[in-house]
């Protein structure tokens, strides 16, 4: 075991960062941007953790990963053991280490962050998960003897994958139904290759398949079979993890012109349908020269950085509030800036103008200023009179959020939803208004995060297990 330095010494170590692909180079490829820790940097960074007895970082993580526990194993150079430690509560460390907003979760509350920089929990999490996978050290967990119960999981995003993994371990027969031809949800169709390589998601799904999870891709529940039909077919319990996949548009004049995509369409064409690899794949995509991406979240950053990689000369983020209010991760905004993205902040589009072939060629915008705070506590942007201007563009990507897809609620009588169309589920069990039917992830919360979806999956799996084994669902409720 590596000798632990005295606390004073440890606090002198500066936070280790991953090295990144050079911005000028990475603008031309879809390879992952950060290279990840080496064993050496991981060991240095692990030294920084003070192993605080109260470990506030654990409470900062939505699924309460035992952070000092896994970091200790890193110090002991038991990297695969560290990965397994994380997996006790988080089934997807390779994914979460990359895409979690750590700066608002585990790392934000790290004791060190008061005086120094927080421990790089995310980088370490990524490192150990990659180490385990790349060195084929992933061990199949013990699978309980068959219970004779059957579970249907609808949707294969982080919520569905987590439910499937937990329940298959408990001896249930699990089938995942996925509408698209590949499993993974947003992890495959939304988040780009340069931020989350698809082979990682594939490895997670392969792992579940090895544990006995059956994948039925290209199967749209509500169209082929409804939830009720699944129950009639002998599934004892159903989990709905269908995400928030219905793109919002702004209802502006000219919004249906050619060259105006939803972020879902643009990213799906590029990621799931691999349009970025035009030599091998057939999917067409518009290679815009002057691209405007509307919105300020992770989705907007993913879209604008995809545009850069597909050859945009000018790639703009058009966002109606200021940088401070942008919901995207700081790291992603920073990466986007490095790659040459131009920011039109406090700017709102008001209409799109097309050419004689109905292709978008311009966008009229208006400048905004921040007024009084609104319901969300953020200052409401208000237009500045006569500040209109025209931006020449040939591609627009609308990334202003998603709503929930009405397909399952519309075909499942008695399934209660709130006024935004999200399924209502009990926080402590994820049970819906229908007996034996559970739901979690973005379909319940609206667009949120990978780790929250995975966390909801954990809670649901526990309650579904109890339900199927004839125990009261409430008894298992987490507090």
């Amino acid at each position: 075991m590596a000798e632990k330095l005295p606390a004073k010494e440890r606090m002198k170590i500066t936070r280790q960062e991953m090295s990144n692909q050079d911005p000028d180079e990475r603008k031309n490829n879809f390879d992952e941007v950060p290279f990840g820790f080496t064993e050496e940097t991981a060991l240095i960074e692990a030294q920084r953790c003070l192993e605080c007895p109260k470990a506030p970082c654990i409470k900062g993580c939505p699924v309460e990963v035992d952070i000092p526990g896994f970091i200790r194993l890193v110090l002991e150079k038991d990297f695969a053991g560290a990965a397994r430690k994380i997996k006790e509560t988080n089934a997807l460390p390779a994914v979460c280490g990359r895409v979690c907003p750590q700066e608002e979760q585990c790392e934000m509350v790290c004791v060190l962050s008061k005086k120094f920089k927080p421990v790089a929990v995310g980088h370490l999490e990524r490192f150990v998960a990659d180490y385990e996978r790349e060195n084929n050290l992933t061990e199949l967990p013990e699978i309980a003897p068959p219970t004779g119960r059957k579970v249907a999981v609808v949707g294969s995003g982080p919520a569905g994958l987590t439910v499937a993994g937990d329940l298959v371990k408990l001896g249930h027969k699990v089938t995942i139904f996925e509408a698209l031809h590949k499993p993974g949800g947003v992890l495959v169709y939304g988040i780009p290759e340069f931020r989350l390589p698809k082979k990682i998601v594939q490895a997670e799904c392969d792992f579940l398949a090895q544990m006995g999870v059956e994948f039925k891709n290209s199967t749209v529940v509500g169209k082929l079979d409804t939830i009720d039909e699944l129950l009639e077919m002998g599934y004892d319990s159903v989990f709905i993890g269908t995400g928030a996949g219905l793109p919002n548009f702004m209802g502006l004049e000219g919004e249906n012109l050619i060259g105006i995509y939803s972020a879902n369409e643009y990213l799906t064409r590029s990621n799931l349908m691999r349009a970025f690899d035009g030599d091998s794949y057939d999917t067409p995509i518009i290679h815009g020269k002057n691209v405007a991406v509307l919105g300020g979240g992770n989705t907007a950053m993913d879209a604008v950085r995809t545009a850069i990689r597909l050859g945009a000369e000018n790639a703009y983020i058009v966002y109606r509030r200021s940088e401070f209010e942008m919901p995207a991760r700081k790291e992603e905004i920073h990466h986007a800036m490095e790659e040459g993205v131009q920011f039109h902040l406090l700017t709102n589009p008001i209409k799109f103008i097309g050419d004689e072939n109905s292709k978008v060629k311009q966008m009229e915008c208006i400048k905004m200023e921040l007024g009084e705070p609104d319901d969300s506590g953020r200052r409401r942007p208000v237009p500045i009179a006569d500040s209109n201007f025209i931006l020449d563009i040939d591609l627009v990507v609308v990334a202003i959020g998603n709503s929930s897809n009405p397909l399952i609620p519309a075909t499942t009588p008695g399934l209660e939803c709130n006024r935004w169309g999200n399924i209502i589920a009990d926080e402590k069990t994820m049970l819906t208004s229908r007996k034996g039917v559970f739901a979690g992830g973005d379909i319940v919360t609206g667009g949120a995060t990978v780790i929250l979806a995975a966390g909801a999956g954990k809670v649901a799996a526990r309650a579904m297990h109890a339900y199927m084994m004839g125990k009261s669902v409430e008894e298992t409720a987490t507090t």
Partner: protein
Amino acid sequence: MPKVIDNMQIGPMVWKMRVEVPHLVEKAKAGQFVILRVNEEGERVPMSIAGLDRENGLLTIIYQVVGKTSGLMTTIEDGGEIADCVGPLGVASHVEKWGTTVVVGGGIGIAPVFPIAQAYKEAGNKVISIIGARNEELLFYRDEHKSVADEFYPCTDDGSFGHHGFVSDVLKKLMDDGVKIGMVMAIGPVPMMRVVANLTKEYNVSTWVSLNPLMIDGTGMCGGCRVTIGGETKFACVDGPDFDGHQVDFDLLSARLSAYREQEQAAMKKMLDDPNCRLHESVQNFKYPEPRKA
């Protein structure tokens, strides 16, 4: 992977494929569609349901070679496989007892309008079937339409078979003759659907059309299939594909269909130029038609 029972040419550039997808066939209804992929690298192509053999679990699709993927489909041998086939998608055609109904099929639309004719008939309607194509060779599915229609009017642009002229001429004549029509269902190329809808609007006859914008997922996730209906944006894959013909913005629909013309033509050219091209000989001479002005 779904099995292709047979795949045969039934006209110049028109093929008929039967795919074994029993569960899908059990659930599917007239007016719905599927999305299939030929292989891993291929596109997702939407195809209307042109026939359902529920006894044997077979789905019939009729497709026209218009580019790379439809070209590639011709290379699948009887007994072969496709990568996947998802469905049934979209809302089934609305069927009621209206009295007299007219189904209008133009070009490749002759196929998907046939199961709808059957459904109209089963609901107790009188069915008048008007189908049209450029010439006799392209006028497939005649026996099928004849078998359900109470009145059958085949048309060809060149007069080689049936009425010499357009399907809309026949429809107009029926309406001028005072036939009381409860519902018209028109499927075909955009210009044809537009002409039919404009005509029936004049005569105040309700009309459904089935729209085929570009699609990817077919589940409402991407919004690529959006169409403007009565000034409102709808997603054809989940809100349609059938819409009130009198409300459709056909200009926008045809514009959006041409969004990728250059990339599509390049993909097709690359395939045809490949010395190992396995396309059927009749497809190897494929040429893109001059874009037709509406």
